[in-house]
């Protein structure tokens, strides 16, 4: 009587192995950080959600008010922003496009890279794929961790990207943070808001969340289409699989 038990055991093994494999991979993926990037400390959760159109619109406005002076989005056209964010051509050309570019053209900053290199020591990078490269949480944390640093040539420093060459453009919104160092060392322990800005801390966090949300969209505009069609594709395939299964059952009735 050993045979049947062994048989069921091995069959059980087959039946369990595959789901176990899928589960293991799932766990590994879930345990992976969304993105690693240089920098120190824990990242804050950005809560970016490209399905939130109002947030995307606010984020776009912030980007074009505070960032486009230095950073381009060379893979992103104004017309595409209008389409995806539910804005009219007029709205985009009046409220967002301050560079005089045509509606169909991509977002190119006016800052000449040579000058930027002279001023900051480094040309500001294009931000089209920033969130794909570093992760939304990293960018969000970065925008929340600027502090005044008299030792830095530009007056600002950042705990997420130490010695960042970027002057903090949102300081009038957030205010000025200063570093509290550990006694007897240079290591930053935490950041204190020494001079509040125009926004409360909660409002500032929402503003940077909107901005990061916009950059997440810019990294992959296709996400809008993916989300739109995905559910229908899955429903269709579920139906297909069910029909295939019924067909199989019907055909296999006479296999004994």
């Amino acid at each position: 009587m050993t045979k049947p038990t062994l048989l069921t055991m091995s069959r059980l093994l087959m039946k369990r192995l595959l789901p176990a494999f899928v589960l293991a991979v799932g766990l590994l993926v879930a345990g992976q950080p969304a993105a690693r990037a240089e920098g120190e400390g824990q990242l804050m959760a950005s809560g970016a959600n490209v399905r939130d159109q109002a947030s995307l619109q606010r984020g776009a406005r912030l980007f074009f008010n505070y960032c486009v002076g230095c950073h381009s989005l060379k893979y992103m056209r104004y017309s595409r922003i209008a389409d995806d964010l539910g804005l009219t051509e007029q709205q985009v050309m009046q409220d967002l496009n301050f560079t005089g570019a045509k509606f169909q053209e991509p977002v190119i900053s006016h800052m000449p890279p040579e000058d930027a290199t002279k001023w900051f020591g480094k040309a500001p990078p294009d931000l089209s794929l920033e969130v794909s490269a570093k992760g939304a949480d990293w960018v969000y944390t970065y925008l929340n961790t600027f502090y005044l640093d008299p030792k830095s040539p530009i007056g600002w420093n950042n705990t997420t990207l130490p010695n960042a060459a970027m002057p903090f453009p949102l300081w009038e919104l957030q205010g000025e943070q200063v570093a509290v160092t550990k006694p007897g060392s240079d290591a930053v322990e935490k950041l204190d808001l020494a001079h509040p800005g125009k926004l409360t801390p909660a409002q500032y966090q929402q503003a940077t969340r909107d901005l990061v949300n916009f950059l997440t969209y810019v990294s992959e505009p296709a996400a809008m289409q993916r989300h739109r069609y995905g559910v229908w594709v899955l429903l269709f395939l579920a139906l297909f699989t069910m029909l295939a299964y019924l067909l199989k059952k019907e055909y296999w009735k006479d296999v004994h």
Partner: protein
Amino acid sequence: MANVFARIGDWVNERTPGLAPMYRKHMTEYYAPKNFNLWYYFGSLAMLVLVNQIVTGIFLTMNYDPSASGAFDSVQYIMRDVEWGWLIRYMHTTGASLFFVVVFLHMFRGIMYGSFKKPRELVWLLGMLIFLALMAEAFMGYVLPWGNMSFWGAKVIVSLFGTIPKIGPALQEWIMGDFLPADATLNRFFALHVIALPIVLLLLVVLHLAALHEVGSNNPDGVEIKKGPKGNRWDALKPADGIPFHPYYTVKDLVGVGFFLLIAAFIIFFAPTFGGWFLEHDNSIAANNLVTPAQIKPVWYFTAFYAIVRMVPSAFGTAVWGVLGMFGSIALLFALPWIDVGPVKSIRYRGTGYKVALTIFVIAFFCLMALGMDLTDEYFPRIFGAGIDITLWDNVFGRIMTVAYFGFFVFLWLYTHLGWEKTKPVPDRVTTHD
């Protein structure tokens, strides 16, 4: 209408009389064992993915620019400006990873049920050649988007050839056509990826199936149905346990295709980067020979083999041993039919030693994979405390797993050549089917 089709059929048959018999031989009169289980879906799924890679690849080629100055931009052009370009690209990138998922499971099935054993050694060898071609194909494809990980990955992998004593450095240069991965490298990798290797793959798959249909499929019981009783409902001379491939397995495989496409579509539409596994974050930065990514590691499906390279130490003034170890880990799979000569095919009736060894082998493979992905650097400090010496832990862990990987083959050789295995009685007929 039916009449028209019948007449066209007749017209073709008169001119190529070999076609209909060939169709019958491989479809309606190919008698496959009736007890195939879940593990037997992956062959047809591998064919599906191959077709997907070729079709989506053709459309990508229409818009991709294989030059160091244009490649990265052209991928973004596909993602943003080409109609449905994002879908085509995600189908191709997801397909690449799923290809390896499917092929790994397909190979594991072959090991578990002894499908590589007599008389199917050639099926197995052709399969292993497919696996080699597939690895080359995937590696070159990964370089094409010319992201920073493409660049550094190419540099590291090609430099493996550089460890070969004497000819290494020259060989490395010859492969790249330059001192670094550059325009020339990209051009030739493109040529190999879009035409040379796909042709080789297609040819090998045809041979793989031809070889299989000559001897007939194995099955989860490892019973040779051709040696069993004869006579089924369709043919008095064919195996009693066989059923015609078409329509029985065509409709059954269709169910597998449905499930597989559900999983694939979920990834394509809702998680195309798969948490940075299928599309890596550092590849969103254009290739830059001045900026080294924080960690250089290959895509997940190469990591187990890559871990072996790292774990074998240098000796006698050369680092070639790691590379030999990696090739050895694959060469041993080629040799499996002559290493595992146990008479019983299926794990269902094999000795306990075999089951334990196979389990350890699978665990070792996953652990090497995790190591190659640098997951251990992240999890060891979490599990064993932040103060540990990670390099030391990685090395000890990795070497144990490398020994376990190779140990599997050594054990199997001893176990079966010296007759240590205590097998269970194998039934005369296949036992189950659904």
